[in-house]
């Protein structure tokens, strides 16, 4: 039981760390990967808390699709924070 709780709190700490990383990071590609890590750990947590339906949804939508849509958006705009599309063309 205590090992289970330690595992849960470790996963929660990992989620918070990934969230802080994706907020602080200036490179938007790395920030998006950080949000993907949040979703991945969250789906493991859902599975451990006996909600396999939600875990499947989170794994498919949060990890794969949302990340990919953000990456496509970054590819069509700019990669670094505070940079406009005109700077990239120069």
């Amino acid at each position, binding site marked *: 039981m205590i090992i289970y*709780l330690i595992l849960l709190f470790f996963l929660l700490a990992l989620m918070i760390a990934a969230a802080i990383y994706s907020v602080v990071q200036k490179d938007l590609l790395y920030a998006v990967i950080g949000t993907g890590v949040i979703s991945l750990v969250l789906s493991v947590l859902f599975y451990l808390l006996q909600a396999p*339906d939600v875990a499947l*949804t989170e794994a498919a939508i949060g990890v794969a699709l949302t990340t990919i849509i953000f990456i496509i958006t970054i590819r069509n705009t700019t990669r670094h924070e505070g940079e406009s599309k005109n700077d990239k063309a120069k």
Partner: protein
Amino acid sequence: MKRILVIALLVVFGIYLAQALFMLEFGQQFFESGVKDLYLTASPLKLKVANTVTAIVVNFRGFDTLGEVTVLFLATTSMASILYKGRHKLGKRTVLFSASNIVTTGSKFLFPAIILLGAYVFIHGHLTPGGGFQGGTIVATGFLLMLLAYSDYKVSHIVLSVVESFAGITFATIGLFGLVYGGSFLENFLPTGILNNLVSGGVIPIIYIAVGLKVGAELTGLIYIALNEKD
């Protein structure tokens, strides 16, 4: 000053949230009685559906699912209308570097397996965890893998829109049939069969297959349009 105020507010909020969380324990039952008992007893006994979540999503709360499907349809349609550039202007994708031989061959092997997993998840939605939304998303990720591995991989827009419309019409028609025969939207009107059989649960497998096809077609079309967008 402003920053200190924000931090103080967050700390106070965090303390209250932590108090509320420490009052609960993981995996404990808090609601002694209520509507959950009805759901838990009625879904295996009356509807013959092993997965209670599916029974709630498709049968007891079926009208909400119609709203969810409509929201998804509207979101993908509006995003497609923003990104759409005309069928003939949908040019070749710009690729930074082409995928290597290992990636293309590996994704060719993985693609049928992913599609099969997605189909399994939405066909077995009433027996095992998962359902139409999850299975459809898994199918869409399979197409995404092929689109990423092959820069000239094409998805037919006509097939996608036909599948999507057909699935949506099936969902709404079954719901209306339930309204006519059973008295409420999405009410079961087919024989329920035996618990844990593949063909059981009345209309629930048909609805989940329709939802799965619809979600898969919508998300595949969305990714295809987004990837092909040219400036």
